């Protein structure tokens, strides 16, 4: 009985989906796929939108897929499946800096263009064709220090609430922050007292933030260069009612930070446009695949709305020169 029902169900599913599959095929458009870190991550909604709009404008086929969890290996079956589907371009926000090397090599040996987007496989750059990063990551640390400095009058103790201890991007920015604090006389009266890690979990980030406040009662400012961290830090400050004493800033999503900016918990924070990453990646991939863009360091190409883009050393491409700052004045202009 049970078996019969199951069989019927499977057959039904098979038939309906078979209809769709055959209808969607048989086009010769460039096939592009973006593999996110995990599903349900609001950051990638906007990035994917950039791809969708870009592909619509360029006449490419586009699909977004992502694993349920962001552990190192979870993207591998998805990459394998895309190779099997015969896509032309795989854009991916990698969950691991090295566990994907082998499968990337497979993909490239089949002529697929492999782009890392919004994060790179640092140390293994030879396994991908190019990387699209939102901004020049060398300047993020400096910009963030300036941001927190301007909020606290360039004087007092500050701390950093980061993602995981090994998050490569965050660590690069933190290095930048430390270098800036050490070398620029403008920040001589600011003292970095601690760097803690909230593992990009709200609960963990909250307890780390609470511990910072307990351990450093004179803390003036907190930089949280991660979207989960800054929201958690802002919430702690909001619930303690100490927005005047402790200034929280960092990198956050306007959609998650809007309420905190409006009620004065957070004065200003920064980020870039995830949308533009997708938009640029789509244009770049199409250009490279059709031969109109040379994927060589130093060559330039035009992208509508973004202007002239240059390929930097390491085949790294940036969508914008500097971070965008969000505050009460402009936050309603952004819908991601």
């Amino acid at each position, binding site marked *: 009985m049970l078996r019969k029902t199951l069989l019927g169900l499977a057959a039904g599913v098979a038939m309906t989906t078979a209809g769709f599959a055959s209808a969607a095929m048989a086009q010769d458009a460039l096939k592009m796929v973006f593999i996110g870190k*995990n599903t*349900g991550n*609001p950051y990638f909604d906007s990035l994917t939108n950039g791809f969708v709009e870009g592909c619509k404008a360029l006449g490419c086929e586009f699909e977004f897929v992502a694993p349920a969890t962001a552990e190192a290996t979870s993207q591998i079956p998805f990459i394998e499946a895309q190779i099997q589907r015969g896509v032309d371009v795989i854009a991916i926000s990698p969950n691991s800096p090295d566990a994907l090397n082998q499968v990337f090599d497979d993909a490239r040996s089949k002529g697929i263009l492999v782009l890392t987007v919004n994060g790179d496989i640092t140390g293994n750059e030879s396994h991908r064709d190019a990387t699209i990063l939102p901004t020049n990551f060398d300047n993020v640390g400096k910009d963030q220090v300036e941001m927190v400095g301007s909020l606290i009058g360039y004087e007092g103790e500050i701390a950093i609430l980061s993602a995981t201890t090994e998050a490569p991007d965050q660590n690069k920015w933190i290095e930048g922050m430390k270098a800036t604090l050490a070398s620029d006389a403008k920040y001589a009266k600011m003292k970095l007292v601690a760097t803690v890690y909230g593992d990009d979990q709200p609960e963990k980030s*909250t*307890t780390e933030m*609470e*511990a910072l406040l307990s351990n450093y009662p004179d803390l003036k400012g907190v930089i949280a260069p991660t979207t989960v961290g800054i*929201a958690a830090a802002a919430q702690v400050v909001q619930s303690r009612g100490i927005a005047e004493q402790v200034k929280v800033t960092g990198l956050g999503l306007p959609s998650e930070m809007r309420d905190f900016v409006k009620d004065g918990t957070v004065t200003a924070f920064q980020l870039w446009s995830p949308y533009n990453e997708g938009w640029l990646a789509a244009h770049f991939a199409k250009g490279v695949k059709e031969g109109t863009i040379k994927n060589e360091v130093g060559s330039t190409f035009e992208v509508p709305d973004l202007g002239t883009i240059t390929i930097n050393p390491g085949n790294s491409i940036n969508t914008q020169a500097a971070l965008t700052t969000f505050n009460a004045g402009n936050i309603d202009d952004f819908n991601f």
Partner: protein
Amino acid sequence: MTTIRSILGRREAGIFVMIVLFAIAVGIAKPQFLTLNSLRIVLLLVPLILIGAMGQMLVILARHVDLSIGSVLGFSAMVTGMMFRYHPEIWWPLGFLLSVGIGAGLGLLNGVLVTVFRLPAIIVTLGTLNLYRGLTYIVSDARQIDRQYVPSALKAMSQTSPIFGIPWIIFISFAVVFATWWFLMHTRLGRQIYALGSNPVAAPLRGIDVTGVTLLVFTISGALSGLAGILYASRWGFVNPSNTGAGFEFQVIAAVVIGGVSINGGVGTVLGTFFGVILLGCVAAALPLLGIAGTTQNAIYGAVIIVALLIDRTVRRQGVKSLARARA
């Protein structure tokens, strides 16, 4: 009987002593741990776990286990969040009804699978753990409910109240603890859960409706996870299809086992579970204060569960021995 009770008394006292010793030890290293502020941090950390632990305790007392609570929490929170997002005109406190109702429904389904098909709860709930999580993605289209959609009044419940400014969420969780204690100690049904768990074979002979009681504990566990779901939205201000409630079951089961509830059913108290939750909360709050890396946290949780199991066994052994001695 009296011997067992005195041992249980010792067991809870033991956990309480552990909490005190732990607090003192941390306090010596970091005096700021022994402040009212730390109490606030711990109490704001534990409400969801406390509520989940009460439901889980009932299930374990009846000699079952519910692994699906994290996904039940996530699903209830997501549907409630979607109500806030797409129907902001609906009076927001109805969200409590919705979340608890959905949780109860999912819990009931677990109970039905366990009783009607006579399946082991651990496997059923391992299955529904994935099933409910998958459904959460499907109903939400894998989109997060952002902070701006969660009603401010709901978020405020985790921050303050007219009573000394102690957040509502703490009162709610304590009320659940009290209600569970009253239910277990002062109702016939509550006593039946103990009876069922300590001897499932004899239970029907004593006139206990085994199916009914089993369905009830799973439904309560689900309903409380649903309550934890809307409180998650209140506490953290968002609902995410993959993060919300993930790993909740392990925190809760760890707390319950530490609290001295025997995994073999029939033994355990509300007070013990309460202390178990508080101990875990203290550990979670103290680690960052001590500057211990978050990466050690899971190892500590695991070790604590294993140690609690070993203690549980020793206590049970002694209980049996002293029972034997009392009879002799």
